[in-house]
């Protein structure tokens, strides 16, 4: 697809300059293919050569992404979002709306899901695919009622003995007047605390943006995975740059310093694994990313199912009580 034919989103395009050589090759390729169709010329050799060059370019670029470039990939508007996971991965999905107190926050979707014979509760930040959807879903920035809805449905899953899968994709919980009035901090805190006591397996996957407390509000799990180009951070690189560098232009430096990429977090022992994306990122070939996520969900839920409830809870508690700790650094009281 030609670079210019693509609708531009400010946040996406701004950081995607590193894809320019790839985009140019993609444009050349589609022109060549169009030419071949139009004129019946045999361009198979040229097309094959160009495809190879394109693959090489993608490989080269994506093997060496800076953290800031990864953040841009994680935010890419063509990257699969919750609706894609629901429509293309689930064989059945029944959405359950609302927190039954205040409202139905569309920034988080919750529902009963089935993949093959595996049934579970799906809790996912929802960003939307079109501008209209993105606005309706508040760009994945949840209000307190979203977190309360999630906890309410997770307690239902516990009652029904269904495991829980959460898909994290949020720039952060919404910072607004209503959110504060209705207890944004308490809602997130109650989820984090509450998830330690849920007597069913919890699998957490960061599929795009893991924005701080807003991500962690559905992020306490027995196993925590990240897609290869997702990021997970205590603060957005922009916010960090504005506070510590007093200059929003320094976001790339902040992204670098924060160690927010999947490989970095795996090395720090803060996540359990990285789910591979296709060459060139999930936005270039969503189905491959979706299939990899599906495999992870089925494998991990099968493994977690084998643990007793007591074992599951004790391990989850210990996993976070000593999260990322250098062995022997802190005293142990139990």
């Amino acid at each position, binding site marked *: 697809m030609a670079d210019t034919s693509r609708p531009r989103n400010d946040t996406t395009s701004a950081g995607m300059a590193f894809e320019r050589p790839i985009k140019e090759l993609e444009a050349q390729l589609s022109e060549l293919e169009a030419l071949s169709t139009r004129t019946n010329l045999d361009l198979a050799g040229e097309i094959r050569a160009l495809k190879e060059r394109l693959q090489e370019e993608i490989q080269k670029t994506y093997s060496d992404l800076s953290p800031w470039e990864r953040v841009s990939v994680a935010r890419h508007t063509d990257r699969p979002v919750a609706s894609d996971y629901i429509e293309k991965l689930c064989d059945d999905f029944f959405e359950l709306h609302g927190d039954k107190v205040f409202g139905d926050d569309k920034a988080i979707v919750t529902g009963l899901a089935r993949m093959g014979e595996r049934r579970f509760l799906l809790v996912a930040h929802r960003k939307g695919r079109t501008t209209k959807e993105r606005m309706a879903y508040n760009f994945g920035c949840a209000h307190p009622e979203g977190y309360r809805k999630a906890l309410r449905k997770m307690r239902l899953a516990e009652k029904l003995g269904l495991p829980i899968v959460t898909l994290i994709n949020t720039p952060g*919980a*919404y*910072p*607004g*007047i209503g*959110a*504060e*009035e*209705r*207890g*944004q*901090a*308490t809602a*997130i*805190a*109650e989820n*984090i*605390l509450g998830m*330690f*006591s849920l007597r069913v397996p919890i699998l957490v996957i960061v599929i795009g943006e893991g924005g*701080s*407390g807003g991500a*962690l*509000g559905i*992020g*306490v799990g027995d196993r925590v995975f990240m897609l290869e180009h997702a990021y*997970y*951070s*205590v*603060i957005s690189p922009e*916010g*960090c740059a*504005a*506070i*510590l*560098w*007093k200059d929003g232009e320094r976001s790339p*430096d*902040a992204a670098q*310093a*924060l*160690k*927010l990429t999947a490989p970095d*977090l795996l090395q*720090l022992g*803060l996540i359990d694994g990285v789910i591979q994306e296709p060459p060139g990122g999930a936005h270039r070939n969503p189905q491959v990313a979706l299939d990899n996520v599906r495999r992870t969900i089925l494998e991990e839920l099968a493994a977690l199912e084998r643990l007793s409830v007591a074992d599951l809870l004790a391990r989850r*508690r*210990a996993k*976070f*009580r*000593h*999260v*990322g*700790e*250098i062995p022997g*650094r*802190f*005293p142990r*009281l*139990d």
Partner: protein
Amino acid sequence: MAAETSRNVESGREKDVPVEPLELAPEEAREVELEQEDEASGEGLGPPDPAERGVEGRRRRLWKKKEMPGGLWLKCESCGQMIYRKELEEKGMVCPACEFHFTLPGRERVAMVLDPDSWKEEYADLTALDRLSFTDQVPYAEKIRRTVDRTGQKEALLCGTGRIEGREIVLAVLDFSFLGGSMGEVVGEKISLAADMARRQKKPLVLFTSSGGARMHEGMLSLMQMAKTSAALASLNEAGGFSICVLTNPTTGGVTASFASVCDVTLAEPGALIGFAGPRVIATTIKQELPPGFQRAEFLVEKGQVDAIVRRSELRDVLARLVDFGRGAFAR
């Protein structure tokens, strides 16, 4: 010199305060710089107010606490009143005009809350590590060293055991004067150890918070402290323990969004700024002026987010009564 004006965005009302330009001695300028650094250590309060940046901003800021002619005077950040320092200290750092409760350093808080000589501090030697080699304008490792030198304590959290009117408690206090009370690995660990102590010793857990939120220089390790402290609280709850958290000015970000908001009883000091996102972040996001008193303790009680506001003068009495009501904890 023409008078300038400074704008108080945080309290949501505009006030015209005349500012006299001052010449800053190097050590005064340094002090202002360190204060700003403290505030900017947690993720929750947001970027510094542009009105307080640069040389003029520093002057303006320092003026707030400058000793005025005729004695030692301080300016209340809530009502703007000039207060005689000695009077403020006698009132436990509470504004005589508006009852705003100034942020207390950790050690002073401990002394104010506990019976004399009952404090036994624990884990005072745990020190922050710069595991990410985080460098903004200064390396984090250097920031820690400087702060340890300046404050004479190793981290932003003090924890230990003590007595309130003879009642045994486990106490943990966040100190805003140590990198803005921001929560990194050591703060999270010490909160969790305090919860563990309360569980093992079957004592009530009393927490005091003042914090800009998670400590950005520790990246995701700091975000994970929200989960760590909650895991420790979950274990305390399971054992039937009793926890009380007193939110003091300011408490924001990852601290509010974790252990500070899920204790059994949540108290707040008058006028304290308490929120998930800091007011500057919200004002920037929604591009409108915030309502008066927004995110102050009184607002939170009004919105049903906090159990009660407690004045400093009544704090020991209230805590002692609550501890007595909690005698049945651990029994079941």
